[in-house]
């Protein structure tokens, strides 16, 4: 699957202030990110250590630019890899999506607040989570 741009605001309820990090590689609005290097984040993949999501990108960002990340405590929109039921714990996964299966992740990325079954792209669903 490939990522497709999300439209509309990412933050549904901002419980905490967003963080600024440097983008390592291109990051798209709505993607789950992990800490790649000092003060730098990258979109999550399914690989070990690359699926430890710390938040969701608020805007698109090119490599080396600053990107706002909605971190723990915020309710945000993101891409679920299925129509995931509210209350389900989710983990960072391929293409910066979230998945109900931990896979290689050891850290919970968030808990689903709403999934209305709206498909963003080929297989991703517009999903709201609280980042944990």
């Amino acid at each position: 699957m490939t990522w497709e741009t999300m439209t509309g605001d990412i933050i549904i309820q901002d419980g905490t202030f967003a963080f600024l990090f440097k983008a390592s590689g291109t990051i798209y609005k709505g993607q789950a990110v992990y800490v790649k290097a000092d003060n730098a984040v990258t979109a999550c993949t399914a690989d070990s250590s690359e699926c430890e999501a710390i938040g969701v990108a608020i805007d698109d960002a090119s490599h080396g630019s600053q990107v706002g990340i909605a971190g723990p405590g915020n309710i945000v929109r993101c891409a679920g890899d299925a129509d995931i039921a509210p209350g389900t714990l989710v983990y960072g996964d391929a293409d910066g999506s979230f998945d109900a299966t931990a896979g290689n992740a050891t850290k919970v990325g968030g808990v689903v607040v709403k999934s209305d079954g709206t498909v963003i792209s080929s297989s991703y669903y517009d999903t709201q989570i609280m980042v944990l």
Partner: protein
Amino acid sequence: MAFTALTSNIPVQPGTGGFKAVTDGTVYKGQGVYWSADNTVKEPTTSGSTLAGIAGYTKTTGEQIVVYGPGSLVRCQLSGTITAGTLVGLHIEGWITPDVVTKNAVVTKGVATTGEGEILILFTQV
């Protein structure tokens, strides 16, 4: 090894505000603390405590202190060589390390040797 208080400001990016607690024993600026009693935080003397947050100031026992907890990106003392992205937790004397069972923070700025680094404190533990 004895804990060394930090001199820099503790919040790097305060995602949430610091909260107030009372200290049990002396707590040093930059030290990781845990909840030891009602509204009270303390430096851990054993491993295995859950990190409540990082102390914003140095305070003696019974004083009020500001602690930066979950949702904040803060400076702290990292023990050993730790790279960015590593999941970490609270160790003896308030050091932050991956060598503990309970982890509830992720390193956002690592260190080549023991010293001042930066972590994002999480709402859940690994």
